[in-house]
């Protein structure tokens, strides 16, 4: 059995430092609700990945619990996250993998 829906990391550390020189990554987290076919479709549509790459990322999310789907400057990553949230995917931004 997989765990029911919970937040990925409950520990909020307000002191976590943001390093302005470090690149950002966009993470998508596994959840028991989104269909595998849907996640693949969204990754192809939003990032222009071919089906093979989108499926590999989707399987990483499914099997490893999360995957890095994009990276870059903070503003670009925030826009990516917004679009992923618009599509109902569970996305966060981070500076560490």
């Amino acid at each position: 059995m997989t765990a029911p829906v919970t937040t990925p990391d409950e520990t909020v550390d307000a002191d976590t430092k943001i390093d302005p020189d470090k690149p950002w990554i966009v993470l998508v987290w596994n959840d028991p609700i989104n269909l595998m076919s849907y996640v693949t479709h969204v990754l192809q549509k939003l990032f222009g990945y071919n089906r093979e790459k989108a499926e590999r990322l989707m399987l990483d999310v499914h099997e490893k619990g999360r995957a890095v789907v994009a990276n870059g400057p903070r503003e670009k990553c925030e826009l990516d996250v917004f679009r992923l949230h618009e599509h109902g995917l569970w996305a966060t931004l981070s500076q560490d993998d």
Partner: protein
Amino acid sequence: MALSFRRNGDGSFGITLPIHDRSLLEQLVPQMRELITSHDPDTWRLFPNPYPKHEKAADEYSELIGNDLQDRHLAALDTVEKTLDAKRLDEDQMVSWMHAVNHLRLFMGTRLQVTEDSDFDDYNTEEGQSMFAMYSYLGHVLELIVRAMAGEDY
């Protein structure tokens, strides 16, 4: 006639929505709007925290986007409501249908606390069984939409 979505040659989508499917969506869409606008806790999956480790950044992001995400979610519901009797949808309208159906699944799956192994027998109240049946049905609808968008007709 069974429920179906088909990609047309001109990039639009043909839709066949049997009366039972239509009336279910007609009931669910306004309920979903109410759940979103009243900030029902079980709609949190539609509004994930993008910065779980940075409280200040999360606040700044939240201020930056304001109601934009909620407005996008509500706009998708509006589009479905306005096109329930359409025989043809343009691509943007089809995407709105896809989003709205997924919003409903995210809410129901959260309320039902589903796991990847959940099935009908896990629920022993009439309300739970009824919602799980709708959740499964909406998964089928979403699968059909995704296939049509990928250009595969079923």
